[in-house]
C-alpha cells in the first residue's frame, strides 16, 4: 500500500496531528512537548528527503486529496521546486526545534505547551504552502502560517505585543491582496487549480482583471516577504520574537513567501505574461537593489543585535528578489534562470538561521541584547562566537563561504542580463559589491566587540558555554555555511535546478 506518492499529504497531516497531540500530552507532561515536536519534524524531514529523491529520479508527484479529481478537488503537486524548498524548510525547523528545548524552558517557562503547539502549526502551514497545487489552498496555509507566527511573536508579551500587532495588520493586508487576486482569477476562469489556471489563462492575458490579479499577488506577497519598501513590520517582529522563531522567520518564512511568488509567476502565469503583458520584473530589480542598499544602511544604524540582523534580512531578501527578477533575462546553464535565487534561499536560511540562534544564545546566557554588551564574550563562549564569526564572514561574502558564491552568481546573472539587452543592469554589479562593504561594516563591529574588546583583557574569565543541545544546532549551521559554499562551487550546475528551470522554461530552456 505504501508508496512515495502518499508522502506529500502525510507531511502536512502528521504535522497537524502532532500539534493536537502536543496539546493533549502537554496537559499531563510539559517535558514531552519538545520530544514529540522533534520526533514529528524528524519524520517529516526524512519524508521530505524521500520526496526529493523521488521527484528528481521519477518525476512530479500529483496527489488528489480524497480521490477527487482536479480541478474540483484539491491537488498536491510536488515538483523539483517544492521538494527543494521543503527540504530546506524542514531542515531548518529541525535545527530550531533542537535548539528550542533549553531556550524555551528558560525564556517562556509557562508557555511551553502553547509554544510547541503553535510551532507545529507553523510548520504545518509552511509545508502546506510549499506542497499544494491549489491556489486557494495556498491562501489557507498562508493564513495558518501567519496566524501562528503572530501568536509566536507575541509570546514574550509587553513590547512584543506591539510588534506582533503591526505584523498582524500588515500581514492581513497582504493576505487580503492575495485573496483578492484569487477572487479575480476565479471570476474569470472558474478554477482554483494552478495547473488548470495556467492552461486557461493564456487566452485572457489581455484582460485587465487578470493583469490586476497579478499585481495584487505581487503586492500581497511582497508584504509577506518584507520586500523593501514594504518591510516595516519585519524589524520589530524579528527582534522581539523568541530567537528560534526569529531564525525561522528570517531563515525560511519570508523565503516561503518568495517561493509562493515564484509559483504564482511561473506556474499560474507564464514567462510570456511577465515579459510581455505586465513587465514588472524590471521594476522589481531596481526595487530590490534599493532594498539591498537601504536595508544594509539601516542595519548599520542599529545597536540591538537582533534588530541589526532583522534589517540585514531586508537586505538579503533584496538579493533573493533581485535574483528572481533577473531570472527571465539570463540564459546561462550556471547562473541562468532561477539558479541564483534558489541558491540564495538555502544560503540565507543557513546564515541567518545561525546568526539568530547565536543572538538567542547571548540572550539565553545573560540577557545581552545590545552589541556593546558583547564585550569580550569570545573568551566566555568561544564556540558560539566562532559560529557567529563563520556565519558573519559568510554574510560579508568572504570566499569560500555560501555568501561569496551567491554574490558571485548574482553578479554573473546581472552581467549576463546586461549583455542580453538590459545594459543598465550593470549597476547591480556595483550595488552587490557595495553591499559587501556595508555588510562588512555592521558585522565586523560585532566581531570586533566579541573578540577584541576584553573587559579587562589580560585575565581570562571562566568559560560559560551553551548547553550542547543549543551549541550543536549553532555549529551545524555555521559549518554548513562553509561546506555548502564549497559544495556549490564544485557541484553547480545542480541537476535539480536544471529540472526547475526546464519546468518553467527559464535559463537555457528559454524558447
Amino acid at each position, binding site marked *: 500500500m505504501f508508496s512515495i506518492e502518499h508522502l506529500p499529504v502525510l507531511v502536512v497531516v502528521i504535522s497537524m496531528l502532532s500539534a493536537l497531540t502536543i496539546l493533549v500530552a502537554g496537559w499531563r507532561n510539559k517535558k514531552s512537548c519538545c520530544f514529540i515536536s522533534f520526533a514529528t519534524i524528524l519524520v517529516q524531514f526524512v519524508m521530505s528527503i524521500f520526496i526529493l529523491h523521488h521527484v528528481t529520479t521519477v518525476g512530479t508527484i500529483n496527489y488528489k486529496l480524497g480521490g477527487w479529481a482536479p480541478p474540483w478537488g484539491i491537488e498536491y503537486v510536488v515538483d523539483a521546486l517544492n521538494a527543494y524548498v521543503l527540504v530546506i524548510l524542514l531542515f531548518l525547523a529541525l535545527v530550531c526545534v533542537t535548539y528550542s528545548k533549553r531556550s524555551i524552558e528558560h525564556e517562556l517557562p509557562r508557555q511551553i505547551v502553547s509554544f510547541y503547539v503553535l510551532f507545529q502549526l507553523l510548520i504545518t502551514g509552511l509545508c502546506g504552502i510549499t506542497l499544494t497545487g491549489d491556489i486557494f489552498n495556498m491562501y489557507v496555509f498562508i493564513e495558518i502560517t501567519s496566524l501562528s507566527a503572530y501568536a509566536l511573536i507575541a509570546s514574550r508579551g509587553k513590547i512584543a505585543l506591539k510588534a506582533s500587532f503591526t505584523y498582524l495588520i500588515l500581514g492581513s493586508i497582504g493576505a487580503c491582496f492575495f485573496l483578492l487576486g484569487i477572487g479575480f482569477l476565479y471570476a474569470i476562469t472558474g478554477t482554483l487549480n494552478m495547473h488548470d489556471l495556467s492552461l486557461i489563462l493564456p487566452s485572457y492575458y489581455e484582460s485587465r482583471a487578470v493583469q490586476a490579479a497579478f499585481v495584487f499577488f505581487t503586492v500581497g506577497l511582497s508584504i509577506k516577504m518584507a520586500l523593501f519598501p514594504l518591510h516595516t513590520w519585519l524589524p520589530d517582529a524579528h527582534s522581539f520574537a523568541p530567537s528560534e522563531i526569529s531564525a525561522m522567520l528570517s531563515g525560511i518564512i519570508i523565503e516561503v513567501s518568495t517561493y509562493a511568488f515564484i509559483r504564482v509567476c511561473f506556474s499560474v502565469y507564464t514567462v510570456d505574461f511577465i515579459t510581455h503583458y505586465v513587465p514588472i520584473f524590471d521594476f522589481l530589480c531596481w526595487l530590490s537593489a534599493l532594498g539591498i542598499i537601504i536595508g544594509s544602511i539601516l542595519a548599520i544604524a542599529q545597536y540591538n543585535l537582533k534588530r541589526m540582523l532583522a534589517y540585514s534580512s531586508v537586505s538579503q531578501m533584496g538579493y533573493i528578489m533581485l535574483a528572481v527578477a533577473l531570472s527571465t533575462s539570463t540564459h546561462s546553464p*550556471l547562473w541562468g534562470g532561477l539558479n541564483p535565487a534558489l541558491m540564495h534561499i538555502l544560503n540565507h536560511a543557513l546564515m541567518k538561521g545561525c546568526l539568530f540562534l547565536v543572538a538567542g544564545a547571548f540572550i539565553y546566557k545573560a540577557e545581552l541584547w545590545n552589541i556593546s554588551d558583547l564585550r569580550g564574550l569570545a573568551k566566555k563562549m568561544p564556540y558560539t562566537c566562532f559560529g557567529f564569526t563563520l556565519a558573519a*564572514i559568510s554574510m*560579508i561574502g*568572504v*570566499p*569560500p563561504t555560501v555568501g561569496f558564491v551567491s554574490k*558571485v552568481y548574482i*553578479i*554573473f546573472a546581472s*552581467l549576463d542580463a546586461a*549583455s542580453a539587452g538590459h545594459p543598465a543592469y550593470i549597476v547591480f*554589479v556595483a550595488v552587490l*559589491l*557595495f553591499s*559587501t*562593504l556595508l555588510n*562588512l561594516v555592521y558585522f*565586523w563591529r560585532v566581531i*570586533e566587540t566579541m*573578540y*577584541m*574588546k*576584553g573587559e579587562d*583583557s*589580560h585575565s581570562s574569565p571562566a568559560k560559560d558555554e551553551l548547553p550542547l543541545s543549543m551549541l550543536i544546532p549553532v555549529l551545524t549551521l555555521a559549518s554548513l555555511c562553509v561546506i555548502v559554499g564549497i559544495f556549490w*562551487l*564544485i557541484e*553547480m550546475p545542480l541537476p535539480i535546478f536544471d529540472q526547475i528551470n526546464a519546468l518553467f522554461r527559464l535559463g537555457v530552456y528559454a524558447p
Partner: protein
Amino acid sequence: MIVESISPSLAILCPAIASILIVLCGKWPNIREGWTMLASILQFLIIFSMVPIIVAGNIIKCTFFTAFPGVDFGFSIDAFGLIFAITSSFLWILVSSYSIGYMRSLREHAQTRYYFCFAWAIFGAVGVALSGNLLTMFIFYEILTVSTYPLVAHDETPEALFAGRKYLAYLLTSGVFFLAAVVLTYHLTGTTDFVNGGIPNLYAEASRAVLVVLFVIFLLGFMKAAWMPFHSWLPTAMAAPTPVSALLHAVAVVKAGVFGIVRVVCYIFGVDLMHELGLGLVLISIAIFTLIVANLFALAQDNLKKRLAYSTINQLSLVIFGVALLTYDGIEGAMMHIPFHAFMKITLFMCAGAIMVASGKRNISEMAGIGRIMPVTMIAFTIGALGMCALPPTAGYLSHHFLVHGCEEAGGTISYFPYILLIVAILDVMYFFPIIYIAFFKKHEGGSKIKEAPLFMLVPIAITAIVSVIFYFYPDMFYVSELVETAMSSLGLEGGVHP
C-alpha cells in the same frame, strides 16, 4: 610540459593542519610551537622539491574541481609563482623561531590565537603564490586578508583596534575591486587562467576604454601593494607584534599585492597589450610618485617600525616600477626584487623587534649607542639597510642593476629614469644611515642592563642577513635567478642584457 602532481596541495595543507593542531595543543606551548616549526619546515621542503621540475621548463598542475566553465579551482605552478612560494615558506621557518623568542620574552597574551592566525595567513600567501587563475588567487587573497586581522589587532588596545579596522577596511574594499575585476575578466574572455604573454582574446573582446577601466579596477584590487595614495593602512598596521610586521607586512601580504600586479601585467594583459594601451605609463607614474613620496614620509618618522613601513612602501613600488618598464630586464629586476627585498626587509624588521625586546625602545632617537651593546643585531641591520640603499655587497644592488638596464632598454625618455632611482637611493641613504650612525657612534646613556636579544631571535636575524649578502655573490641561491630566467623565457619577451 604539464605535470600533474599533488605536492602543491600538500604544501597548502601543511599550515592548515598545523593550525588545527595548534589549537588542540594550546595548553602546552612547547608542543604548540613545535607544530608550527614542523609545518613550516615540511612546507618549505615540499615546495622546494618542485624546483627541479619547474626549472626544467614544466608546469605543475593540480586541479580540484571546475567552479565555472573555463575556471578550475586549482593550482598551477610556474617559475614566477614558485619564487614567491619559496620566499614566504622559507621565511616562515625563520619567523616561527623568531616568534617564539619574541612572544615569550614579552609574555604576550593570546599566543594560541596568534599562531593559529599566522598559520592561516601563510596558507593564504602560499595559496596566492601557487594559484593558477584569478579566481583561485582571489579566494586565497581574501583568506590572507581576514586571517591577518587578528594579528594586526593583537594588542587589543584602542590603537591596535583602530589599526585593525583600518587594515580591514582598506583591504576588503580592495578585495571587492579585485572580485569585480575577476568577474569582468571572466565575462569578457571566458577564462581567468594566467597565460604567458596575456590572455590571447582579451584585446579582441573589448574596447580600449573597457580594458583601461579593467586595469584600473585591478590596480585598486591590489591595494595590498600599498601604492600611493592607498598606502596608509601599512604604517598603521605596524601596531601589530613585530614578527607579524616582519613576515606579513614586509613579505607575505604586501608581496601578494605586487605579485598580483606582476601577474596581471604579464599574464592577464600581456606586455604587448600594455604597450598598445599605454598603460605602462600609468603604472610607472604611480610607481615613481610612490617611490619619492614614501621616502620623504620615511625621513620624518622617528618610530623605527614606521620608518621601515614607509621604506617598504617605497621598495614595493620599485617592483611596480620594474614591471611598468615592460622590458625584459625591467620585469626580470621586478621578479628578482620580490625575494631579495623580502630577505632584506625581514632582517630590518626582526632587528627592530629585537631592539624592542632587549631594550624596550621603539624610537630611533632613543637608540644611541645600542650597536655596541647589541652588535649582532645592529650589524644585521646595517646589511639590511645597505640593501635598501641598493649598495653592494647586498642583493638590493643586483635588482637595481636589472632595473637600470630595463630603463635603458625601454629607450626614449625612460632611459633617463635611472636618475630617479638614484635620487630615491640617496633618500634611502638619508634615512637609514643616521640610524646606523646613532646606533654605533653615539654614546649610550643610562645603565647597561640591556643585553643582546635571545638566541631564538638572533639566529633568524643572522641567517636572513647572511642570505642577503650571499644573494649578491651567488644569486642562484634557492634557484632564484634560474627560476627568474625560466619565467622570463616562457614570457617570450625579446631582448635582455645578460650580465
